[in-house]
């Protein structure tokens, strides 16, 4: 099978899968909206707390005014949506209930199905988010004046975030092949991620040493960077550098996932799951 043939075939597979996800998730738009509404409480809390502090500290804290915080946390809701990928907890059911077996008998790597499906879902999420963001903006009055190249960079960065997080959570989920006592590991991961990804607070509000340590981890590239690309004041070269870092983490993720998968399948095929 020649290379261009298989690339076309893969693209066809992704698009078909995405189409199905779009059809499905549009069917469930009410449930999707409910979920989004539930999700909004978290950033609102952060927003209110930090706006309060900003006002008490004379208008701004860490370089953010209440308006800037509003912008940060409203864009946060979209980035958060893009971050939601297959939960690592789903792997247990997948393995034990034989769904993985059925996927393994087909000639396409199961992870392609995951990525393709969620990618389609994200398209629906983005569409549903737009009126939602408008509504939030009316209430919280964000300060947001992005340049066109910021918007372009933002668009690419949210998909980069989606891919990086997919890799990370797939790696986590694959631990289930060896043990089912994974809850502790997962929760620890999520807790660390919460703090140093930019989800809890903008990274610039963290002490210097935390920011330096966080640079070694992929988390800020899944959350903080996309938000700051749109909301912050990055120059085109800084934006490009950030996108480059995302690409680097995606490649690292791909390599790790492929490697771990080989071992995981060996384990699975030895004991049957």
């Amino acid at each position, binding site marked *: 099978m020649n290379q261009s043939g298989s690339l076309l075939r893969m693209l066809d597979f992704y698009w*078909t899968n995405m189409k199905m996800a779009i059809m499905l998730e549009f069917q469930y738009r009410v449930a999707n909206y409910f979920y989004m509404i539930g999700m909004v409480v978290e950033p609102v809390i952060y927003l209110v707390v930090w706006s309060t502090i900003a006002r008490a500290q004379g208008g701004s804290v860490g370089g953010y005014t209440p308006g800037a915080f509003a912008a940060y946390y409203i864009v946060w809701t979209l980035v958060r949506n893009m971050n939601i990928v297959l939960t690592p907890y789903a792997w247990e059911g997948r393995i034990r209930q034989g769904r993985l077996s059925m996927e393994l008998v*087909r000639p396409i790597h199961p992870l392609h199905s995951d990525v393709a499906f969620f990618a389609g879902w994200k398209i629906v999420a983005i569409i549903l988010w737009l009126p939602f963001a408008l509504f939030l903006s009316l209430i919280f009055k964000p300060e947001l004046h992005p340049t066109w190249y910021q918007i372009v960079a933002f668009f690419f960065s949210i998909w980069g975030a989606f891919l990086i997080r997919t890799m990370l959570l797939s790696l986590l989920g694959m631990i289930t092949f060896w043990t089912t006592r994974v809850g502790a590991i997962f929760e620890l991961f999520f807790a660390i991620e919460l703090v140093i990804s930019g989800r809890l607070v903008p990274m610039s509000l963290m002490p210097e040493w935390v920011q330096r340590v966080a640079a070694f981890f992929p988390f800020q590239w899944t959350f903080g960077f996309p938000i700051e690309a749109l909301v912050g004041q990055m120059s085109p070269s800084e934006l490009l550098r950030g996108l480059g870092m995302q690409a680097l983490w995606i490649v690292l993720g791909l390599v790790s996932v492929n490697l771990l998968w080989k071992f995981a399948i060996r384990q699975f095929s*030895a004991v049957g799951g």
Partner: protein
Amino acid sequence: MPDPIISINQLSKHFRVPVREGGLRASVVSLFRRKYNTVKAVDAISFQIDPGEVVGFLGPNGAGKTTSLKMLSGLLYPTSGQLSVLGFEPSRRQSQFLQQITLVMGNRNQLAWDLPAIDSFDLQRSIYGLPADQFKQTRDEFIELLELGSLVNKPIRNLSLGERMKMEIVGALLHRPQVLFLDEPTIGLDVTMQRRIRTFIAEYNRRTGATVLLTSHYMADVEALCKRVIVIHHGEILFDGELSCMVEDFSAFKTIGVTLKNGTADLRRYGEVLSQEGSRIALRVPKSATSQVTAQLLAEQQVDDLTVEDPPIEDVIEHVFAQGGAQEVSL
């Protein structure tokens, strides 16, 4: 003579299972020292299947059928032995290998629950990279064969169990695989539906010359589709050959159905009375005594009608298992 398409030689699959005992003391001990038992799910089996054969794989639960199928489709690594399907080593799970096989497990849903089947079929097309016109032709051919009509446009969740299974089978065969592994495909379906699916599989085999390895609890499946059966129990092959031979070799009894002219009678001295409904009586007699008992009945009773039948296959199978010994009779 074409090469066998499936070839298994001394194939084994052993599992190490931790031993669990009840009681507080045992659980404490097990924290420090784990004891393992080796379960021989499949124990040094060998057989070959030629292209185009439809083979039935019979055995009670836990006999090793599903384990064997999983090894053949590449899901499980064998503990020892050689196996080859379509010239490939299944556990290597090469793309060209997976492209030509299909695994259908009854009760397992592959198609998207909330979408119409037609959309899931399109997904199958993209998974297997089928050319559009060839795919459409195959799809429409199957839809017509199974008389699915407009059902393909209804979400899967709105279909009955039987209709769903039909869709699953179509979805599994759209890529025209050369080798079919079917694990209990008709389980839970009503009789009409079972027959429909059986006909479809037979037709698929006829049209494409595909090889089919089928496990089932229902003798009707096996009788209708398979000329050859492999009986497996405790991981060992007890019988491998034609169904009719198995009946002959392993059934020690025949069933004589007698319809008497007037009323009923006590025929216990001729053989074991299986059932008695008015003037219709079923007797079970040893094979060797069949002609003798038949003659006696005709002479001594007022017989309106008399039939001599093989016992139901279930009885034969039970007999095979009861024998337990690895009596391999190949043809």
